[in-house]
């Protein structure tokens, strides 16, 4: 198992470096970053000065090395817009995004897993059909639109929940639902499929032959095995979710990292955008790595090998 973790860690680091290179090279997509930075009215001299100031006159690989080396020490440069260190900017905003991500995945798991289990216990029953409908409809529901509908219904018509901001926990209810529902269909389907497969396995028959009560068969014997792949999926979804928080944060005006990304893109604030892409990617990489380790630990076959 130690070997597996080591190998998995090596892969994670390699992926992280590749992602960092891609997000860095986005800067050069525009052609001349100095010209873009200076704006259309700038003179040739201004552009030249900026180019030298930001070091754009050096070879690209040197710039990348420099950027990466600083990034490894937690220095992502200075924001073009705020004229402040990017790292601090992002750090201030991350807690909102992380809160949202954790609430979102918790919401998804707490709704999708019980629904998937219930659907698997009684296939083709009413609850199975409802679960199937929710998963198909959920996949097709555009999250920005879903968010707006919730605002119309619960904030404007009913006046139950605040439409935007982060002041209290009630501000997080709608964003959590909008972010979380997106991961629900996949988690529900995987739970249902896993439970169906496990329930038809021989060891479930063995458990019943021992006289184990049905609840014990379902939860101790079946769910324990069916949940293993769900852990990986939840980690992947959590990574996607943080990346998707940009839409949710912009709808509900939550000033988290996603909102910062949206603003920075609009302001051409490339150092901030680069850093955010890298940080969101790192979250995904760390989550999937942790999920693989957790998985290996949950599955005795992998734990002992």
């Amino acid at each position, binding site marked *: 198992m130690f070997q597996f973790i080591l190998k998995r860690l090596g892969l994670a680091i390699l992926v992280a470096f590749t992602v960092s290179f891609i997000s860095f090279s986005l800067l050069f997509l525009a052609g001349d970053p100095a010209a873009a930075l200076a704006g259309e009215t700038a003179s040739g001299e201004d552009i030249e000065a900026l180019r030298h100031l930001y070091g754009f006159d050096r070879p690209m690989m040197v710039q990348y090395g420099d950027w990466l080396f600083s990034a490894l020490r937690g220095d992502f440069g200075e924001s073009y817009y705020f004229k402040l260190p990017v790292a601090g900017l992002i750090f201030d905003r991350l807690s909102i995004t992380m809160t949202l991500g954790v609430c979102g995945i918790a919401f998804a798991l707490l709704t999708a897993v019980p629904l998937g289990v219930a659907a698997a216990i009684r296939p083709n029953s009413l609850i199975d059909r409802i679960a199937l409908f929710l998963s198909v409809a959920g996949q097709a529901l555009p999250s920005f639109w879903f968010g707006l509908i919730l605002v119309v219904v619960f904030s404007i018509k009913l006046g139950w929940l605040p439409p935007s901001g982060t002041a209290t926990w009630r501000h997080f209810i709608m964003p959590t639902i909008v972010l979380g529902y997106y991961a629900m269909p996949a988690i529900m389907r995987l739970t249902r499929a896993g439970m169906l497969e496990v329930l038809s396995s021989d*060891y479930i*028959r063995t458990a*019943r032959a021992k006289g184990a009560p049905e609840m014990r068969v379902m939860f101790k014997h079946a769910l324990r095995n069916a949940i293993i792949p769900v852990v990986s999926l939840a980690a992947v979804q959590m990574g996607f979710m943080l990346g998707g928080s940009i839409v949710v944060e912009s709808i509900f005006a939550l000033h988290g990292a996603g909102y910062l990304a949206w603003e920075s893109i609009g302001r051409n604030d490339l150092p901030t955008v680069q850093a955010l892409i890298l940080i969101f990617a790192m979250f995904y990489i760390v989550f999937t790595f942790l999920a693989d380790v957790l998985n290996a630990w949950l599955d005795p076959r992998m734990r002992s090998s």
Partner: protein
Amino acid sequence: MADRLLTVRDLVIDIPVGGGTLHAVRGIDFELDRGEVLCIVGESGSGKSLTSLALMGLLGKRIKPRATQMDFDGTALLSASKKTMRSLRGARMSMIFQEPMTSLNPAYTIGDQLMEAMLLHRDVPRAEARARAVELLEKVGITAAESRLGQYPHQLSGGLRQRVMIAMALMCGPELIIADEPTTALDVTIQAQILRLLVDLVREMGMAMILITHDLGVVARVADKVAVMYAGELVETGPAKEIFEAPMHPYTRGLLRCIPLPGKTKRGSELGTIPGIVPSLVGRVSGCVFRTRCTFATEACRGDIPRHLRGPQAFRCVLDDGGLSQEKQEVQA
């Protein structure tokens, strides 16, 4: 009269399938006394496993077995509540399955799974269940039993897993063991070993056993009683000795010709085969189901089939000697 443990009368199992109803088991009768070994013999798909699952109440929600009587020590199994069935399963009747590789839960240790039945049914402390698990693991011939308790199923070979399954079935000292082809999934070399172990334990502990198998060699060695199943019906039942000495039903005779038996089959003689395939049991089934493969089949085989009794032996055939006299004539001619 011996101490009757199990009585089955006219057991019927119908399975709803896409194109109608599969009449998988049709009207079978048998009984079992305490300490007796009954072997149910037949080809795959003849309804042997379904019968045993029906006894355990493990057929699932979709399949509802019917019978005029199915009693286990005075408890009517078919009308018993779920709770009653649960208190019987694993405690007074246990089952050993065919597939040791997949019958153990991969997520829990051997020890946990062994102790589970005892902790569920008996109000005992964990330490006592643990001691019992160690005792039984040693009994089924597993060395270093104490350390095996912490191992996971994937760390054990198929033979070891089946030994664990046997130990697991014995945990609560059941009165009836149902073993459904317990050795077919194992290497040929250890099949006999495991089977001998099982039979010895059953005899030692005075349990009754239903052994499902298609290995007549095994039957000849261990059975008190034999029931021969063909396509969902019991075609012949009786004490093992009589069945092997004087098989009456054409199918039983065919089966016995297919295997070499020590002392009965001459060296160099040709082994028989039964030509044809088992018919489909979907839709209405009437008459003798063996007629499509039977050499003595006549038009009468489509009608009702009488049951003949010869001492303790019983068989179903339109011919009152099961075609034995015709067969002898053919052999002479």
